[in-house]
């Protein structure tokens, strides 16, 4: 358990160092994820060890956004007078982006012969 946490934190640390050293436009933890994936590919034995911990962390991923969410409500005035316009832009663009993204994925999956395995 402690070892697994140390492994995950170690990869995050390596990602942070790389992101800063090379001034990459991606945050350290995302680099850490890529590095851990690479490590899994090189040493599949590592997967069995780390997978339960990673699943435990991700099962309640929603919880981790609560502190930042409280900040939004507490700083609602940051939206200013443009609040309603910004909200309309967020709702509209999110619905459009979801629709366009999912339809493109499904369309291209069919074209490349990888469609219709939805209900697995």
């Amino acid at each position, binding site marked *: 358990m402690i070892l697994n946490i140390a492994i995950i934190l170690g*990869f995050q640390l390596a990602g942070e160092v790389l992101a800063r050293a090379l001034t990459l436009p991606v945050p350290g933890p*995302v680099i850490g994820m890529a590095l851990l994936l690479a490590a899994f590919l090189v040493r599949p034995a590592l997967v069995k060890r780390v997978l339960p911990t990673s699943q435990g962390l*991700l*099962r309640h*991923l929603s919880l*981790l956004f609560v502190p*930042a969410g409280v900040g939004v409500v507490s700083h609602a005035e940051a939206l200013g007078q443009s609040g309603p*316009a910004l909200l309309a*832009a967020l709702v509209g663009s999110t619905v459009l982006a979801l629709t366009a993204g999912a339809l493109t*994925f499904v369309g291209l999956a069919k074209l490349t012969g990888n469609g219709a395995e939805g209900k697995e």
Partner: protein
Amino acid sequence: MTDLPEIWSYLREGPLLWLTATLVAYLIGDAAYRGSGENPVVNPVLVAMLLLAGVLWATATPYGTYFEGAQFVHFMLGPATVALAGPLYSNLHHVRRTLVPMAGALLVGSGTAVVSALWIAKALGVEGATLASLAPKSTTAPVAIGIAEQIGGLPTLTAALVILTGIIGAVVVTPLMNAMRITDWRARGFAVGTAAHGIGTARAFQVNETAGAFAGIGMGLNALLTALIAPYVLGLFQ
């Protein structure tokens, strides 16, 4: 014996109370979600943040004091992002076969998010730094704040817009995909990760592990792509 106000003033300054409150609020949110028959509108993050904001307001507690306790939960976002490598590895056979659909959905989804947000806001009279703050709203918070600083946005406003986008995406994705009869978990997950970053990804994991894995990839790739295109797209609207 110490009287209650004294205990309260001791507790509200330390991390213990607000850390506990964060976990309890989330448990209540999660129970409400299950109790509602897993209705996506009863999003656990949304319920918990409204509850906690109410408590902070009622007790006149500044957000900074709250965050001293809640930061331990907030910190776990980093390790959780690294942990996404797990489901990604388990779904690698899916990922390998869908490189073309992912590339297409990334370009279209990411582009639509930035262009339509700026277009709607501009049409409603939003301009300047506020408009710039909107451009990176679909990317994960640390990247969005970096982009906002680069293109002349307001980092605090961007942080709020990012969280709101995530919650909107998490709430609408299931009814929207059902209405369009899209049953492919890979498409549903990838789209929500691209449009609504980590909160969308958390929603995807709530529903299906394959959807979660694809959402994680969408989130990561979108962060990269938005960093590249946001300055140019914003230029078209200024």
